[in-house]
């Protein structure tokens, strides 16, 4: 092997890595641009990009528009319109909200926006209809200036736009007052206004620009995908988070070169890995899985080892004292009478549901109730980590999947009892949870969310593919079957009703445990930490220890719930139940209802399982005397996508009501009655005194 040959391979690898690198760079730039100009770590970036790409696709392919009008519509009309709407309706009122609240809102949007677009524009992804780019014959005309690797026109367009983009945006920040003003508004809108700059107009402009950029990126990236699906955009976005992390979310050149570097690194790695694997046979089994894992390995490496990120601190607004403190939720001690009433009502309600469930329900209803119960168990894991510890974890799906796969593997290989296997699976999930949390706990906030999201996709792209997890090739034919447990004389596989009873028992046990933890020292420590970390430390609470416990407990519950979900369905059904995007919807759902209470998790479970069949398919009407299955009004069934729109948009309320909408409504409703009871008590107490 000559030196020249090595050189040529290397150059080819670099050129090969350039197009994907450009894609990462475009998305990384988008992240940095939005974060810098609006303070939002915009996980809805993928959604925005997707909408423009789909709009472009529809205009070109379905309406037969020319390239220019299609670009104008999708990139310069739709994209900024979305950005301006988001700014005006949501983010303008949240300038002083924490980065984590804004992140949750962005997650809600990333769930809601694509569904809303598909409903409004009547767009359906159709397999095999490959999107085209913004240059004619973009994918069929090639240029090969070096004679080593040919670039398509589409790829050249990407490269040019990314390069020009980084230069223009960089120039905007360096040389214009607008760039400074945008950064100023993110840090302190009031101080920016003191300089005579209208903050509202600046942030509207910032959103317009970053949304146009998102739309542009979407349209440019689309030709790389075979079919336009919003999830693919999301996945690409997660891959590109490493690029944004290189730029510490604030440096445009950092994000650009981070993205390019990632593309080059992967290409070079892929060029040389097979040769290394020939020399070192131990690499062989990893060969296939190393490539997809690289972006995550890089991201994790950056998060854990790059000192600049550890030092990155959210700059606080020096004038935040000017804003009135948020109205404290009337923290009330509930009147004992009200507590009693609530309990009686709760017992009656549950009794009624239980009685109906076990005596009246048909097969379909039992299945729905079982799903609701099992999902409630999983959602309690979000109650622990997000509700109690205040941390955003986006890898609960992976933890649940660990539980499910463990049951599958242990039963398959060792014929173990399914219930024992479920507990082992939960324990493994707990250990994994602690290990994932350990290195990134200190970062906290947005970075923790990024790290967990990366882990979720790493699990999805790499871990599931291992045969000792997902079953490998044999699972392709026989599925990942999971039996239901047999305990003594009870075989829960025989009767769906019995399995529902078992699931309810597990849910009750987990609920009680979660309440115990909340009331116990650990729960109180977490509450203290969430409220004031410095104060909690000053009385001897170790933030790291408390949060690792929270992570492990949360992962344990998720693992247990995941195992039960697999048992319920008789199969792990990984893509349907546990994919990262599905798990993100869990978070949105729990957070928008109530992340702080056990009821919240159960309501979220019920909402996930029942909302579609009961409300959207119109089944509730069948309970009325007139209607039956065949004469439902024409608007039913309503598309299940409304579920995403509804809960995604409800999550927007997170910044103002972090306790969740249901909890907020409940508190407000009980408030009045509470006050009345106390007033009556006071009157009674006063009465005898007046008499004397």
């Amino acid at each position, binding site marked *: 092997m000559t030196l020249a040959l090595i050189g040529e391979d290397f150059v080819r690898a670099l050129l090969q890595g350039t197009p994907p690198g450009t894609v990462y760079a475009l998305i990384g730039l988008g992240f940095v641009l939005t974060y810098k100009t609006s303070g939002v770590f915009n996980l809805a970036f993928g959604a925005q990009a997707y909408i423009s790409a789909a709009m472009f696709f529809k205009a070109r392919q379905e309406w037969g528009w020319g390239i220019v009008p299609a670009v104008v519509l999708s990139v310069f009309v739709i994209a900024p319109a979305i950005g301006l709407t988001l700014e005006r309706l949501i983010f303008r009122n949240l300038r002083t909200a924490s980065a984590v609240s804004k992140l949750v809102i962005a997650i809600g949007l990333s769930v809601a926006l694509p569904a809303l677009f598909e409903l409004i524009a009547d767009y359906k992804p159709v397999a095999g209809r490959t999107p085209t780019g913004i240059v004619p014959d973009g994918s069929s005309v090639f240029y090969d200036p070096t004679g080593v690797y040919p670039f398509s026109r589409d790829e050249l367009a990407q490269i040019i736009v990314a390069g020009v983009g980084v230069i223009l945006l960089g120039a905007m920040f360096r040389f214009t007052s607008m760039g400074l003003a945008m950064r100023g508004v993110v*840090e302190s809108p009031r*101080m920016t*206004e003191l300089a*005579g700059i*209208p*903050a509202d107009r600046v942030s509207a402009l910032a959103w317009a620009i970053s949304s146009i950029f998102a739309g542009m990126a979407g349209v440019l990236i689309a030709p790389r995908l075979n079919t336009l699906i919003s999830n693919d955009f999301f996945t690409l976005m997660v891959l590109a988070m490493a690029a944004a992390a290189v730029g510490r979310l604030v440096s445009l050149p950092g994000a650009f070169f981070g993205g390019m570097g990632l593309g080059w690194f992967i290409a070079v790695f892929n060029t040389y890995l097979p040769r290394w694997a020939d020399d070192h046979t131990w690499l062989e089994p990893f060969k296939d899985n190393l490539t997809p894992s690289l972006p995550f390995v890089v991201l994790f490496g950056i998060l854990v080892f790059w000192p600049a990120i550890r030092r990155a601190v959210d700059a606080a607004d*020096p004038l935040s004292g000017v804003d009135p403190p948020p109205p404290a939720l009337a923290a009330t001690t509930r009147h004992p009478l009200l507590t009693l009433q609530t309990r009686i009502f709760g017992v009656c309600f549950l009794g009624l549901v239980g009685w109906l469930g076990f005596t009246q329900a048909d097969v379909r209803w039992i299945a729905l109730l079982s799903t609701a119960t099992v999902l409630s168990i999983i959602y309690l894991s979000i109650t622990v980590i997000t509700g109690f510890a205040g941390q955003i974890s986006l890898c609960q799906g992976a933890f649940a999947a660990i539980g499910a796969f463990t049951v599958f593997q242990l039963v398959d290989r060792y014929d173990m009892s399914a219930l024992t296997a479920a507990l082992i699976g939960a324990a493994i999930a707990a250990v994994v949870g602690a290990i994932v949390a350990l290195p990134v706990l200190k970062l906290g906030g947005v970075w923790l969310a990024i790290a967990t999201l990366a882990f979720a996709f790493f699990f999805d792209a790499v871990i599931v593919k291992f045969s000792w997890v997902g079953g490998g090739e044999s699972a392709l034919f026989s599925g990942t079957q999971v039996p239901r447990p047999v305990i003594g004389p009870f075989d829960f596989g025989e009767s769906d009703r019995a399995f529902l009873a078992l699931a309810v028992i597990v849910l009750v046990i987990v609920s009680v445990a979660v309440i115990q933890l909340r009331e116990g020292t650990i729960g109180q420590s977490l509450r203290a930490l969430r409220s004031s970390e410095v104060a909690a430390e000053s009385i001897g609470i170790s933030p790291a220890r408390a949060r690792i416990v929270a992570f492990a407990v949360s992962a344990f519950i998720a693992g247990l719930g995941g195992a039960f979900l697999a048992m319920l369905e008789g199969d792990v059904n990984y893509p349907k139940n546990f994919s990262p995007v599905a798990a993100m919807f869990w978070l949105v759902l729990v957070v928008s209802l109530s992340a702080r209470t056990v009821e919240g998790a159960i309501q979220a479970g019920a909402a996930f399982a029942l909302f579609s069949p009961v409300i959207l398919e119109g089944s509730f009407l069948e309970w009325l005397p007139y209607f039956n299955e065949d004469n439902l009004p024409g608007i039913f069934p309503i598309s299940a996508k409304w579920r995403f729109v509804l809960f995604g948009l409800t999550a927007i309320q997170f910044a103002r009501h972090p306790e969740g909408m249901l909890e907020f409504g409940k508190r407000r409703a009980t408030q009045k009655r509470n006050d009345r009871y106390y007033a009556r008590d006071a009157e009674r107490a006063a009465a005898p005194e007046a008499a004397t």
Partner: protein
Amino acid sequence: MADTPLLELEDVTAEYGPFRALFGVSLTIHPGDAMALLGSNGAGKTTVARVASGLVDAATGAVRVDGVTMTREPTYRFAQAGIAHAPEGRSVFATFTVEENLVLYFRRSLGRKNVPAALDEAYTLFPRLGERRRQVAGTLSGGEQRMLSLARVLVEKPRLLIADELSLGLAPIIVDEVYETLTSIRSSGAALLIVEQHVQHALELCDHVALLDHGTIAWTGPSAEAADVVVDHLFETGSSS
């Protein structure tokens, strides 16, 4: 004294959420006036300064600039009307460099052409800032951040300069320099509204004094008469040493 007051607060009340900070404060500042706001901790001095620059909206009452009612106008309109406010504490953009902090303000108030000259002036006034012009403002010491937030209002030569806790955290020599600059700004016709701990300094510079107590104006008058009133007022409940 000109006829139209530059700034007029009429019977202003202000609140932060449920907490009321001002109860019916009236103040008038004519072009060229220099007013010192004195009073104990929590008396409402900072809130008066914030209402005067539009940072805090008056809940009731009226705020007029050049005779035009600006009661609930956004803050930037006040700045565009020539009112510059250096808020208390470390009011700088922490992630900006020293120079970016200054440029953000100078570009709008002085125009792009005049930025280099203004920067030179700021660095002459505070050589320490010149040495650290590329440094990120968040890493400056408290005193240097204070210099930075003062530098911009001193160089801008606004029509009304509002400075909150002017000399807090500055070394005495620098305080003297700041006062020299203020004197020269005054003589060029700008009005001043100053919140100050160093009563002595403030009385030397200003011709008017407003003494605040629990969100109301307890006394106003020329500074010549102020010394005794202020000392009485500030120390009536205090010092037994």
